[in-house]
């Protein structure tokens, strides 16, 4: 498991597909259908990333984000929508969002999954190995080795 994501989406089929796709990539997904439930879940536990639809019943996406930021200033947030509204976009950027993903005719499930993965885990396995390999010998002292 590489991370826990909260998906805020009122459209059942969209949520179902995205949830399954993310889970197939070993990402844990909690799905909620409105802003109120999203904020309740936020208070209960930590998430590594939030996927937030902007058009939601009752609370709108930007209002939900406002609430999220009061609880957690640093959590990564992806907003995705098929609806562009510049004043709202400005507000979202000021509140802090990592990515903006289009739905509708441009919707691409696996691109979305990859975006989520890259945010949860910025390095691929090869990159990790390379990074570790570049460290000087003995950079990490393994206390157990001394015991042997």
């Amino acid at each position, binding site marked *: 498991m590489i991370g826990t994501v909260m998906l805020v989406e*009122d*459209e059942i*089929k*969209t949520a179902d*597909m*995205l949830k*399954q*796709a993310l889970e*197939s990539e070993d990402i844990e997904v909690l799905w909620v259908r409105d802003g109120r439930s999203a904020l309740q879940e936020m208070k209960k536990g930590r998430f590594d990333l939030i996927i937030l639809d902007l*058009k*939601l*019943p*009752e609370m*709108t996406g930007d209002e939900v984000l406002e609430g999220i930021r009061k609880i957690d200033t640093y959590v990564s947030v992806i907003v995705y929508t*098929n*609806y562009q509204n510049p004043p709202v976009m400005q507000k979202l950027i000021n509140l802090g969002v990592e990515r903006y993903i289009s*739905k*509708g*005719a441009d*919707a*691409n*499930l*696996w691109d979305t999954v990859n975006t989520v993965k890259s945010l949860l885990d910025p390095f691929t396995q090869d990159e990790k190995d390379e990074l570790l390999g570049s460290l000087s010998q003995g950079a990490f002292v393994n206390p157990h080795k001394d015991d042997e």
Partner: protein
Amino acid sequence: MTIVETMHDIDTQSNMKQVSDEIRELRLAGNLEEATKLCTKARHLFPDKYLFSIIQADLYFQQNDYEATFIALGEYLKKQPLSKNRFVANFAKRYYRLQQVLPKEKLSDLAEKLCITIDKSSADKNVIREVKDILRPDMVSINFLPEHSPKFASFIKLLEDDLNFNEFTKQEKILEKENRYQLEQVLDKYVLTRERVSSTRRIDTYCASIYEKFEKHDKAIKLLTELLSVRIEAVAARSLFRICRTIKNYDSVDNFLSKNPALIKNNDFNILYELVYYFEAKNDNIQLQRVLSIIEKSFAQNLPILETLKNFYIRFGMLEEIKRLEPTIRSITKDKGKGKYVEELEESETEIASTISELNSQLNHQKQLVAISDLTTGISHELGQPITNIRYTIQFYKKLLEKNLTKDSVFKIFDSILEETERMGALIKRLSPLTSSRNVLETYDLIDRIKKRVQLEKPRLDDNHIKVTIASKVPVTVYGDSVKFDQLISNLLLNAIDAIKERNKTDKNKIDIKVEDGTQDVSIFFSDNGVGIPFKNKNTIFDPFFSTKAPGKGEGLGLFIVWNLLKSQGGKIIVDTSYTNGARFIITIPKTFNLEKETKL
């Protein structure tokens, strides 16, 4: 040799100073007669300077000739002031001296004459106003006793009875010209407070018009209201309306109409004319249209009235009505034709009408652009959801199926995609009343159609405990597109159900439908006791995708569709803003739908 004779050689400014110095010397030497003569000459030499008029006033005052002083002051006030404050202060100083020496009655008389003189002159408007403020206390002096003035004594006698009405108006006109302010005082004392009796009715009505002319609106309204409470007369009613219109406050009319509601049905043109303004001010479109149509029907051959009516139509931007009226006006004008003048008039009017029509079409075009943009945004959003779903589904299973393909999973995909296309189809169907152009015209009973629609929505109505009342016993037949009418009623019902649902109460939920059969139109009053419409949304509720409901709970097309359905049928819908217990729509549909006329629009 006097200085005046040499003045041509020297510039005006120094000349004026020399002349005034000379006058002063004569004054100091006590030679007032010579000083006056010189001053008169100087006034003619410098006609646009006020200096010599004021010196002359002082000279006359010194010689105790007060009437001449007033005339000189009148001359002074007609001049162009350099600084308004100093100019008026100069006058006030002299007037104060006159106040000290003149008996009240004389002062009042002269003050009034001065007032009338400057009123008629081209003197500076601000100066006139300030000077009047200075003069007013003396003109309406409490010591003025009109009974003792020969001018007024006989007039007061005439006020007592309508018998000598002609003589009364003759004298009134003279007094109005010469002693306006005293006349007002006399009316205040002898007419305003007396009892309204039939023997002085004509005079009292006439006096109301004098007050109106003097812009003493309160007094005019008092007089008219009292007259109308004794007997209702078109002339007095019309004046009351007109004054209220002038002061932009219809309280007195409201009060009067609450006691005499029948006046609204009056067919006197002058009353109808005022009713148009009244209902415009009251924002009562239904009544406004009713009055306009009465005028059009009742005075079909009266050219001046038709011209007035046309101006009303122009004022309210009722282009169709203007077009309808024009042939009639033209034919009457031709009959009475007065040659070239008439034609020119006609041309210029046609020009005005076409300019207005052009402006209107530009405005409509702007509105249409906004509406199209809203519609496009709305549709693209509504379609975006199913498209996302189809793409996600295909993309998900495509990857999954690379590894293992089963019949079940393929069917799952097909079903899912079919479901989403149905969703798209539903949106198109929802919008179809706007796009379908087929007009199946037939004669149908409107009440019957409404009842059937209500029956169809019964499950939904019952779910929300809504009682529907249709108040009309007899059938109302209409010739038009019955399918569109069905769509109209269904949309209104759904809209009302949503509004009631939003109110979120289970008791006494109701929808009332009242149908009024008119001569040309049928009016439907469609009310619900749901959440209602805030005044600011009065016009926007008909915009596409306008919805106060939460996203996903209503796409905001219902009333937009209703509006368009009515537009295509020559009907109208407005929000009754006076209805506060929920929402009320007033729908008007023509009884005979003229396809040719409508499609030309």
